[in-house]
């Protein structure tokens, strides 16, 4: 069958009819982990995105939504990709209702642009995510940072969403008021869905006032003082001083925990002093300091590059000492030296393996860790070990998630929203 000469022009015509800005994909710039799409379309509105997805459905095209692409390399590559829908032409902050602490934003707007609009009113979207990422990408990947501890993930700040289904139907849920329980919350389902259920075109967020003052309290330990640092993390996280972040960073060369306090000038000064005392009294002989400089793990790593493998470990905080020991043991068993960091006080850590790690070692690290942290059958789940980024061979050998509670329901949801399995096929552990 001569698909090149007959079908491809028909597809192109249909896509262009739906959305004027469509081009052939560039085999280098548009490839996703080696998978090269045929077309890239740049819708300027939800209507154009809807028309594009109708055309894609008519021609049975596999579709990958894209923002600025900062997260595209995380997670499994698509098993097929005919059309990339690039949201960067939809880059507007549609409405910033400062008095209501609410903003409605097009999915292709960058976090940096949104921050500059909100900042002029002394407000912010309380997520610590890269400025060059798009709003839609952050929601779709569920990206979080240190302040996850206090403000949660994108799903916790998202109050309304507009999506386009795989069949092109446009749907909304939520609205632009914070308190709202009318109907199912599609925003929760689409947060972290990685583009596999449909295309996010607009998001409405709850905002927070920017704090007048911030301070970090940090404590440095000898790299083997795992018990003491775990105790400090738990004390900080459980204190009534209302920290905004309780972070941990750990490698062969350093072990540090840090607590972010936000509030008024006088309040932060007073609270950070008390927090420093609390941390110092939690055990060990840490060097405790106070600073306004953000505490970032990658500042501790000389010449930090993009890690080859990122493993997310979630846990109940009371298990933190065991988690740290399991990370050390899994590293020793696999012959790798992970750099571990993250919002430990919120029960999340990321273990990163550097580029050049042997794939079988990385897979072994994940499997040993997962095994060590498994809870006995019969008790409820107490955490998980997920591979967020890794070469395909590591994903294949270790599995992205291990056993997932409710996997059958997730399959049903995927089948309902995307019966042809055309939305980012292969991305979320399934195809």
């Amino acid at each position: 069958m001569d698909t090149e000469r007959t079908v491809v022009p028909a597809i192109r015509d249909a896509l262009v009819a739906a959305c004027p800005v469509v081009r052939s994909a560039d085999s280098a710039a548009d490839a996703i982990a080696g998978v090269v799409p045929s077309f890239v379309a740049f819708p300027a509105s939800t209507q154009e995105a809807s028309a594009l997805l109708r055309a894609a459905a008519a021609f049975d095209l596999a579709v990958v939504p894209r923002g600025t692409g900062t997260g595209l390399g995380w997670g499994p590559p698509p098993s097929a990709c005919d059309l990339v829908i690039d949201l960067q032409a939809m880059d507007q902050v549609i409405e910033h209702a400062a008095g209501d602490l609410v903003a409605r934003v097009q999915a292709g707007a960058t976090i940096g642009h949104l921050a500059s609009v909100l900042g002029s009113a002394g407000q912010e979207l309380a997520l610590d995510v890269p400025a060059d990422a798009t709003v839609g990408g952050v929601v779709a990947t569920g990206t979080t940072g240190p302040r996850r501890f206090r403000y949660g993930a994108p799903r916790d700040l998202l109050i309304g969403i507009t999506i386009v289904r795989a069949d092109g139907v446009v749907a909304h849920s939520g609205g632009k008021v914070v308190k709202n329980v009318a109907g199912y919350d599609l925003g929760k389902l689409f947060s972290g869905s990685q583009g596999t259920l449909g295309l996010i075109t607009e998001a409405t967020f709850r905002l927070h006032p920017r704090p007048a003052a911030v301070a970090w309290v940090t404590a440095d330990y000898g790299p083997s003082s795992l018990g003491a640092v775990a105790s400090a993390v738990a004390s900080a996280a459980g204190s009534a001083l209302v920290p905004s972040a309780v972070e941990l960073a750990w490698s062969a060369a350093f072990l540090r925990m840090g607590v972010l306090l936000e509030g008024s000038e006088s309040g932060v000064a007073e609270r950070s002093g008390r927090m420093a005392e609390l941390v110092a009294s939690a055990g060990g002989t840490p060097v405790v300091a106070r600073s306004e400089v953000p505490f970032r793990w990658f500042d501790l790593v000389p010449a930090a590059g993009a890690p080859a493998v990122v493993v997310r470990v979630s846990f109940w905080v009371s298990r933190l000492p065991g988690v740290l020991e399991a990370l050390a043991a899994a590293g020793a068993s696999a012959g790798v030296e992970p750099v571990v960091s993250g919002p430990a006080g919120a029960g999340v850590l990321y273990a990163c393996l550097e580029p050049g790690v042997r794939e079988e070692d990385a897979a072994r690290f994940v499997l040993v860790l997962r095994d060590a942290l498994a809870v006995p059958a019969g008790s409820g789940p107490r955490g998980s070990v997920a591979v967020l980024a890794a070469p395909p061979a590591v994903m294949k050998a270790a599995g992205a998630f291990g056993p997932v509670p409710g996997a059958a329901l997730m399959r049903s949801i995927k089948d309902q929203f995307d019966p042809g399995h055309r939305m980012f096929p292969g991305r979320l552990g399934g195809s």
Partner: protein
Amino acid sequence: MTTSTEALVPRLREVCGPGNVITDPLELRTYECDGLTSHRSVPALAVLPGAASEVASVVATCAAAGVPFVARGSGTGLSGGALPREDGVLIVMSRMRSVIEIDPVSRRAVVEPGVTNLSVSKAAAPFGLFYAPDPSSQVVCSVGGNVAENSGGAHCLKHGFTVHHVTGLEIVTPAGELTWLGDGTGVASGYDLVGAFTGSEGTLGIVTKIVVKLMPLPEVVHTLLAAYATTAEGGRAVSDIIAAGIVPAAIEMMDALSIEAAEAAVHCNYPAGAGAVLIVELDGPASEVEAELSVVRAICEAAGATEIRAADDPAQRAVIWAGRKSAFAAVGRISPSFIVQDGVVPRTSLGAVLARIASLSSEAGIRVANVFHAGDGNLHPLVLYDDAIPGQEAAAEEVSGQILDACLEAGGSITGEHGVGVDKSRYMPKMFTSADLDTMQLVRCAFDPANLCNPGKIFPTPRLCGEVPGRRRAPHPAVAAGQAEIF
């Protein structure tokens, strides 16, 4: 009892024990409504399972027979979400009421669904912790019901709703299978089923265990009451507080009519002659709260407060809250019947919408008392009527619907915390397009394709689910590797 439900009785007695299956019509009438008494329907039978496995067996039995079922917690819901089906089984969760575990270091508790909201905080208090969502019915309402409704409460302005405090759920699916959703920590691997389930009003399954976050008790709590001549003045204070970058734990307002009712009911001794009372609560570290308190006090004064009272000990704070907490029940003192609405408006539209409510009220000759969560724009207009006067109930219904229209026109919602249930499903098409409702029901189809789990709630028109053949493009590597984790 219909033939098909009657046939289930022996099996259900076997599962739950003979004493826990209710078939007596008089006893069944106890369950004919929830907190919204205007909708009544006697279930064909009621069962009171004592364990998650029993819930699973009950649901599996219903599913196999094609009999609809409805779960009920304490029955305090205000939207008819737990309204039984005459042709169905009511599954009453009140026997499953243990706090299974408290892990103070992790700040997590695992509870059964029949546990009352307040008893979670009571169990956590010895560890210096509490469970933040606090619906007004917290003394009796169940955590399972809170999950179904995504309940809020006065303090959700700062601390969030139930969905922000639930990190794992064990549920019985509408097919009768017991499964966990989420990994227990609030981090999702794959789709956020905990988020999707919470607030689904009992239509996606029945929750059997709940993992909740606990928060450290605040160091200090200050409550401030400010009296105003009008709600407009009080509203200005609210806007100024938010504009000052302060997020109080709660900001509540009552108008003259609701103050009158509260005085009659609980003698709350609010400032005499006040046209509006504003209650602002600040909680957190002492150094922050004291700084905020002086700002809030200055703002309240500048907005024209005729009197300000402040309290920082539990007994004094309770005195301030007494009138507000009694408000719904108190209007019974000034009106034989009333409808509680739950509309939400953007905070900045509060003044305009309150003025609109006042004119709707005077045009129709129907009194409306306003009690509301001013900080998040969640109005609770109490539409008063006398059912002994012909036509008044219909007029009150009319005003009630017009108030929701006004909320939607302002960019708000028909419900902030009570849920849609049976009561507001007819208003859903005013807020959502048919495509929106159709898309939401894809979720319903994924969980409950047979439409047996609390049918007839939320959506005005059910969607036919049909069989959706999943067509995979290629076997995923994990499948090839024999991993059973795909979805």
